[in-house]
């Protein structure tokens, strides 16, 4: 029963990792941008949620109504104001700029919010649980998992069934030709970043309800996001969800053997997959 419990809890944890990773996957898929500041943007979203709940007395989940649009706006401005200027043939420039952004975000948050660990209080939701055949599932992890599935399904639908999705795919396939066809590359990239940060907003608020956070923890969350993206195949959204679940389950099973193996087991699963399928489980078609 302990093993079954470990696997189920690991799946739920995978939902969290997929939420962390969905934004990264989207950004990479559309504009080949590796965003080092992603973890810090998640923490920024958590602080936004905290500020909103504190100022308006809302339930943390209701704060999403404000956090998501705010993060989307930040994303659009960030992309058009800064990141678009760095995107070109050189992969290094955007990498360095997002790295700098990460340092600025961490220290800016430290200056404004101090180093105190903060947490959003979601009341009974945090501790509520449902017994399912001998296993107790927390309501919050289940909600997070379902949200992750919903977000990924929504992004997937948007990608393949809307004009915006078509614009994203076209730009991703060939920027020059998309531009010739009348798509404004700068605007499309801005929208992609806005969408990615909207998802980051959801991840941040859930992170803030789930555990306590301080300005410095963003970087630590980044690696799981990257691993989930790479396991699933770069730029493939369902793959990212599966990558998150594989990571979560291998960590939980590793921890069941010995807690010292928890993170190691996740990294090993990642390396094994990378060795067997260097392009991830579901690589995106290129060309």
């Amino acid at each position, binding site marked *: 029963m*302990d093993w079954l419990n470990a696997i189920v*809890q690991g799946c739920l944890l995978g939902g969290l990792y997929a939420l962390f990773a969905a934004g990264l996957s989207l950004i990479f898929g559309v504009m080949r941008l590796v965003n080092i500041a992603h973890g810090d943007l998640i923490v920024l979203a958590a602080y936004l949620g905290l500020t909103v709940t504190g100022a308006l007395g809302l339930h943390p989940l209701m704060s999403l109504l404000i956090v998501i649009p705010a993060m989307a706006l930040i994303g659009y401005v960030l992309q058009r104001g800064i990141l678009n200027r760095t995107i070109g043939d050189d992969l290094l420039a955007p990498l360095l700029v997002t790295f700098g952004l990460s340092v600025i975000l961490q220290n800016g948050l430290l200056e404004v919010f101090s180093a*105190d660990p903060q947490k959003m209080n979601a009341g009974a939701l945090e*501790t509520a649980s449902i017994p399912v055949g001998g296993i107790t*599932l927390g309501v919050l992890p289940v909600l997070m998992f379902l949200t992750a599935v919903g977000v990924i399904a929504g992004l997937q639908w948007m990608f393949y069934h809307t004009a915006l999705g078509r614009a994203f795919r076209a730009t991703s396939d060939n920027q020059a030709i998309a531009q010739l066809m009348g798509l404004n590359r700068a605007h499309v990239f801005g929208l992609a970043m806005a969408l990615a940060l909207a998802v980051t907003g959801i991840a941040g608020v859930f992170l803030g309800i789930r555990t*306590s956070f301080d300005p410095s923890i963003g970087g*630590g969350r980044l690696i799981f996001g990257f691993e989930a993206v790479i396991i699933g195949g770069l730029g493939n959204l369902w793959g990212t969800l599966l990558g998150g679940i594989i990571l979560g389950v291998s960590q939980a099973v590793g921890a069941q053997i*010995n807690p010292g193996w928890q993170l190691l087991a996740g990294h090993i699963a990642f390396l094994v997959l990378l060795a067997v399928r260097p392009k991830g489980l579901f690589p995106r078609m290129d060309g």
Partner: protein
Amino acid sequence: MGSKLSLLRPNRRAFMAGSASALAMPAILHATRAYAAEPVIRIGHVSPRTGPLAGFAEADDYVLEAINAKFAGGLENNGKRWAVEIISKDSQSNPNRAAEVASELILDDEVDIIVAASTPDTVNPVSDQAEANEVPCITTDCPWQPYFFGRGGVPGQGFASTYHFFWGLEDVIAAFLDLWGKAGVSKTVGGLFPNDADGNAWGDAELGFPKPLAAAGYTLVDPGRYQPLTDDFSAQISAFRDANCEIVTGNMIPPDFATFWAQSAQQGFAPKVVTIGKALLFPSVIESLGARGDGLSSEIWWSPDHPFASSLTGVSARELAEGYAAATGRPWTQPIGFKHALFEVVADVIARTADLEDSQAIIAAIADTQLSTIVGEVNWSKGPINNVTKTPLVAGQWQRNGEAFDLKITANASYPDIPLTGEMKLL
């Protein structure tokens, strides 16, 4: 071959002459300084102002303001007045950076005494730099085992110029056992020890918790070292639940504890006593946990209820803590007392040193310290090991008082002078 040598020789001579005069320079400068109208003694201070450890240093400004006001008129030494200059530098919570700023303080600012506080990541690199440069160094706010053994200290030999005051692992264990003894719950303890310097020391089979707990009749369920910033504690929770643990202990960082504590509730594990080191020190952490913070317990290094007063400014522990709360609008924290005490010791050493020009005389004065500070007695002749002395440690519980949480001292067997302020309640 010959020509190469002849080229080398004059160069080396010139270098030797130059470096000798360079080496002599500080000595010459030192000698002249005492003849100035008012000589200056410089104190270097390293603390983690930014980064993950910033919580430990949040009271720096408040403490230094009071200390600077006190030092403004200078300090008396052998009938002569010395101006005191404190140069404070940020370690950015990074041990490499701490070593770098310590070496800047020593080599560029030419400080006479260097002080540092807050965790092995700050204290150890600063002490190592001071030891290498033979500069007197006083540190605090880090259990003495990671300080002493973490720096490769040899018992009986110790260090030449670096001194430390705080408590040790044996004190935490004694305080926790005292706390649990009063709770009257079954003696099965779940242990959560991370794979970091503190967690490995606490969980160590020889020097950590396992032996004393077994000796006191407790069963310790220790699933193993986990990596800090873990997102899932399901394995530990099911191990504790299977063993019917009524007590949970360990040494965690706040985000890990918050994850564990939320998952415990979600997965139906409800221990009666939860006593965690490090994570539960700060009121801000307890407040962030909301109603789930009520009844958690922790070690207490210093509190407003400690019956001590500052040897420097005369303020009591309560006045210092409440002064901080009034000045900043933030709750008091335990490192405040230790940061203040650090400068109490410095002032005392400056007053007693036979010759402030001579670093050996300063070191001798540090070793001879016998001072009642705001955190208790600092006296290196009474230490558990060379260069280390211990201040009192008790344990207590966070109890809800209206909207705020109070840290009640509920176990004081090791230091009965520190009054109990509450009774242990089960979760």
